[in-house]
């Protein structure tokens, strides 16, 4: 089996405040293979974005800090490396796109200038070559009249076009891994579909691995191959997309899937999981989902469940005592 592009091992990122240490991401492990699209799903505040910022080492510090764990990018552990080395990695080996295409571009400079600037950081060459590459990138992400857009300002483009520009910028140095932090949340539905199709085609064309962070299960179903479900800073379930939708194991995942409107059933009220996401750091003992779980029993309140492997085929793990068959627990 091929070595993974990204291998996150027992990552823990905390924020330190007057109330003490608050773990936003707690003991998370996952890996992304070459050319794979991995989805990370969860509600707001479950630690998705902190996970992505941790991988880029862009967690605002202080108050945030990667407390422990390893982030292996092609075998190189990013946690201890210097800021200088990180700058070489950012944009060149890992790139990132953001939620708000309306504000991710500097309003004062032309699209071309910003693209060229991003390329210039990592590549050698002259102005002509940079310019040609920038135009090529704009064409690659399906923008019409790429030369014209080079000379335009961000406010002259629509949200979807700006997100395409952001993708072009992110991919301009040929990174092996692209982290997309809710790239379609701020766009309207037709544009969402276009952007997702674009990302999927670029993933196939360039063989770039993608970590897709989202709260939208539709996005996951659309383009991901494997999914991690996060809850309150922990991975609660990991499986292939098919398994997650066909055969969800964790009560939280089941709840999430039930909350998706289904066009085939006429429902008066959409299902919602009772309660709210707990504040990070507020639950110290037991399963973090216990308070909202309909299958809760004594053991859930006393111990934190480990990840159990589900017996069936493929790699499917779930953090729930309901699936403790004895001896299938990962000890983490």
């Amino acid at each position, binding site marked *: 089996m091929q070595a993974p592009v990204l291998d996150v091992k027992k990552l823990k990122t905390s924020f330190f405040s007057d109330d003490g240490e608050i773990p936003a991401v707690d003991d998370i492990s996952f890996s992304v293979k070459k050319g794979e699209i991995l989805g990370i799903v969860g509600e707001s505040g479950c630690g998705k974005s902190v996970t992505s910022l941790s991988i*880029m080492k*862009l967690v605002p510090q202080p108050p945030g800090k990667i407390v422990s764990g390893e982030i292996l990018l092609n075998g190189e552990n990013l946690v201890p490396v210097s800021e200088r080395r*990180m*700058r*070489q*990695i*950012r*944009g*060149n080996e890992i*790139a*990132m796109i*953001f*939620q*708000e295409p309306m*504000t*991710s*571009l*500097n*309003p*004062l*400079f*032309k699209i071309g200038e910003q693209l060229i*600037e*991003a390329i210039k*950081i*990592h590549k050698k060459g002259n102005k002509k070559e940079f310019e040609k590459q920038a135009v090529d990138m704009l064409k690659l992400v399906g923008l019409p009249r790429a030369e014209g857009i080079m*000379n*335009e*300002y961000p*406010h*002259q483009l629509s949200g979807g076009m700006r997100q395409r520009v*952001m993708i072009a*910028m*992110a991919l301009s*140095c040929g990174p092996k891994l692209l982290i997309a932090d809710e790239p379609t949340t701020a766009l309207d539905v037709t544009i969402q579909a276009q952007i997702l199709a674009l990302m999927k085609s670029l993933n196939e064309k360039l063989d770039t691995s993608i970590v897709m962070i989202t709260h939208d299960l539709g996005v996951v179903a659309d383009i991901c191959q494997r999914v991690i479900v996060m809850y309150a800073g922990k991975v609660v379930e990991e499986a292939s997309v098919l398994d997650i939708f066909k055969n969800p194991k964790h009560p939280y995942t089941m709840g999430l899937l039930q909350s998706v409107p289904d066009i085939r059933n006429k429902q008066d009220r959409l299902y919602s999981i009772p309660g709210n996401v707990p504040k990070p750091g507020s639950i110290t003992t037991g399963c973090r989902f216990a308070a909202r779980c309909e299958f809760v029993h004594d053991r859930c309140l006393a111990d934190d469940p480990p990840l159990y492997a589900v017996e069936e085929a493929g790699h499917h793990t779930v953090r729930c005592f309901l699936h403790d068959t004895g001896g299938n627990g990962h000890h983490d």
Partner: protein
Amino acid sequence: MELSMNKNPQKPIVPEEDKAVSPWLEAWRSFRKNKLAIIGTSIVLFFIIMAIFAPLIAPSGINDQALDKRLLSPSSEHWFGTDDFGRDIFSRVIFGARISLWVGFLAVMGSLVVGSLLGILAGYYGKWVDTIISRVFDIMLAFPSILLAIAIVAVLGPSLRNALIAIAVINIPNFGRLIRSRVLSVKQEEYIVAARAVGMKNSRILFRHVLPNSMAPIIVQGTLAIATAIIEAAALSFLGLGAEAPNPEWGKMLSDARPLLTQAPWTMFFPGIAIMLTVLGFNLMGDGLRDALDPRMKN
């Protein structure tokens, strides 16, 4: 129906395609529409031209004394009258524009550069850098500014140059705090995080992204500060801590004219008007710039 028909088929009704319009150009367009701002800018330009071409405009030199023509009231020969040395006040006011504008620009430049630098450091790096710089600003702002200026001149010795330095120093915290708060808000913008995500260096982010996006309030504050600086320079000279005789600094002229107020009011009136007009010009221009550069500030 009739109205919506395209009567000229050669010219299809298509909106003119948007040309690349930079935010600066857009601000200029809105500035141009603001009448008061244009009046202010015209006044400023008028004084600048007057200052540059002073030797060509002024009928006599700054210290051409004619003791037989002392304290003449305004006439066709001496438009603004003469002072107690028989010097032509019109000429002195014109030359005075050079001094006042020069002091205004230089002092503001000084405080702008130093203040911006400190403000950027404080805002971008935060932590102890911010604490030290901000506390120094707080201390400086705790004094009434003119008092602080007098103290500085008292230490350095009275001269126009030292008055200029004093004015520059007392205005540093105004710029510093402005830039600091601006940097703090720009720092949160997503394009700054995006710039870091492509591997850009801190210094480059500062000068390429943070500073240009903080420029608008600097320009506005800078324009308004020139007005204040001109008043402060006049005040220091009035107190005898700035320009020395026979320099036709407007504040100094006011001070010299003080004993003559009842006898020859024109000696005080014209330099006073000159100060008032210049300050008004810069203020109108500054307000116009603020409206143009930050549309949210408009009421």
